[in-house]
């Protein structure tokens, strides 16, 4: 099973670089969708001691929501708002990739030094999880398109969920389902907001949402 786990984690790292380097919205959605599928499959290969029905339920819910439903919702958002199909970066793509590499090194450095109690955790899990969360955070800050920010929020959420898998035994199923549902509603609410933003402004550039500030009298 270790081979599978390591393989999945490497793909997870690659999807982050994919997200960082893409200039097109559709490509970003695809990257996050692949991440979602991975998030669905990971619990199946990591946790062998939990009851099978539980693993299947969790995998099915993650895969279905994060791998299929979220991307479809966001795709529809892109189509309905007829947004420009670019991610509108504040930080250029090559610079983003370079920063990504730095983030990866940082995640590897810290992740390998944080021992998870129990010792049964795959070595790469914590670094890959941290890297995914940090990438998400960076993309939220470094892109102006509201859809990409929503996508990056999902990536951040994926990273944190991957970290949570290391601790799966302490976390009851209900909580996992709750977090998943929350992420679902978050994307739903963000999607609706993006729709309104586009209708109101004819753009989804969050950088131009800047009329509210403290102007001196």
């Amino acid at each position: 099973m270790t081979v599978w786990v390591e393989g999945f984690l490497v793909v997870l790292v690659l999807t982050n670089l994919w997200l960082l380097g893409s200039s097109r919205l559709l490509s970003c959605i695809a990257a996050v969708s692949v991440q979602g599928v991975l998030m669905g499959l990971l619990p199946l290969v990591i946790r062998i001691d939990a009851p099978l029905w539980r693993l299947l339920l969790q995998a099915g819910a993650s895969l279905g929501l994060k791998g299929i439903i979220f991307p479809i919702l966001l795709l529809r958002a892109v189509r309905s708002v007829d947004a420009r199909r670019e991610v509108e970066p504040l930080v250029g793509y090559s610079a983003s990739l370079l920063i990504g590499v730095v983030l990866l090194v940082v995640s590897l450095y810290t992740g390998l030094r944080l021992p998870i109690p129990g010792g049964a955790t795959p070595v790469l899990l914590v670094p890959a999880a941290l890297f995914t969360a940090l990438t998400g955070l960076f993309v939220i800050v470094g892109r102006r398109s509201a859809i990409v920010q929503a996508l990056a929020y999902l990536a951040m959420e994926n990273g944190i969920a991957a970290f949570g898998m290391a601790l799966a035994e302490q976390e009851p199923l209900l909580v996992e389902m709750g977090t998943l549902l929350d992420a679902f509603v978050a994307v739903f609410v963000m999607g609706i907001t993006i729709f309104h933003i586009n209708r109101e402004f004819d753009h989804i550039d969050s950088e131009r949402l800047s009329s509210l500030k403290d102007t001196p009298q």
Partner: protein
Amino acid sequence: MILILVLLPACAAVSAYLIHSDRVRRVLLVSVSAAHAALVCWLWIDPAWFPPLGAWLAVDALGQVFLGITSLLFLAVSLSAVSFLKRESGTTRADPEEGFLFDNTPEALFTACLLGFLSTMTLVTTSQHFGLLWVAIEGTTLASAPLIHYHRHHRSLEATWKYLLVCSVGIAFALLGTYFLAASIPAGGLTSMTLSSLVANASRLDTRWLKAGFLLLLVGYGTKMGLAPMHTWLPDAHSEAPSVVSALLSGALLNCAFLAILRILSVTAAAGLGQFGRHTILVFGLVSMAVAAGLIIGQPDYKRMLAYSSVEHMGILAVGVGLGGLGDWAALFHAVNHSLIKASLFLLAGNILAVYGTKRIADVRGALRAVPVTAALWVAGFFAILGAPPFGAFASELAILRAAVESGSWAVVVVFSLLLAAVFAGMITVLVRTAQGAQSVERAPEPALSLVAPLSLLAASAALGIFIPGFLDRALWRAVMLLGV
């Protein structure tokens, strides 16, 4: 019984969405909030009727205090909401400040979200499991986002997007912190993520993971609570949301996030890291007060000013908890007072906005002549929030100062008093300008329904300043016991 408290508003939210008649829906809103308040009242009288539901849902003294504030405030706000919805219902209207036309969110959706907001906040106060707590707090964000976007125009949309994104990122930090907390549990997995079992086994927790988890949770829930420098969503959301929603955000939601921080503090304190936790919270508190004071002085928009005042008061709560001991009691008491006063002020700000049609302080003149009752309450509310006697905030702020003096932290005493004085100076000039002078609009009618809530909330705060009832004092001290040292 606890489940009823959570599910009653949730079911009402669903039915509110399905009901077509505005009248019936408004009756439902008020009656459900009255029923919720009655149940909470019952809980205060006899907690034995509300037994814990497994290890996950229970009402302890801390939860009881915050549930009490939330429910009371929601009842008051629902009365004002009826008057607000009557005023706002109808078709497209023009923006008073910029003149463009916009629609409002359908009333059914608005009412449903209000009730959903109450349900999720009740879940926050009753939740004893850190995972469930996270779910509930994220739920409050999602239920309240459509409320901020009630007026469908570009400013409210911008505020909603900032609120969603900033709070979601904050809450993601809190989720990571929750997992770190889980990682601090030693292998063997005897301890679950419930508050009681974490506190009972606190000495066995891995302190490195616990410290990191505490910081992440503090930053995460601190974003929601409006502690600087994570407060950026707060002024926009509070100024663009309808005033009834601002009142709820400021009076109830910020408290819920504060409660979440207190929960993790009690685990940290039980693990022997109480000093570390409290010092960190103290620093956040003073920074918040300083940032708020800087932005209150010269602030041109009175709703933003009230929002920054909330940042300031969240800072005061954090300072109280940072000091510990009497400071804990004072912070909890101050949370009660701040909720009562600030909700009342936001409701009054709504009345003023409705009459004057502007949020610019410079354009509001002579309120005492134009809307005498509202303006009289506005003046009283300003004095109350600035900590003038006889209001409750005076007693709680004085108690925080006393806690600082007793602990010998003279630097805190000096900085705390200076910042309070700065805010006082900044807000009192605004009060003089808006209340006094020649009126800039015609004298306007003031519907009684829009005055009942602010009046009774302010009266409650004044009463608390003169006399703290025994049952409240006992509940506050029992809550302090839960926090540990």
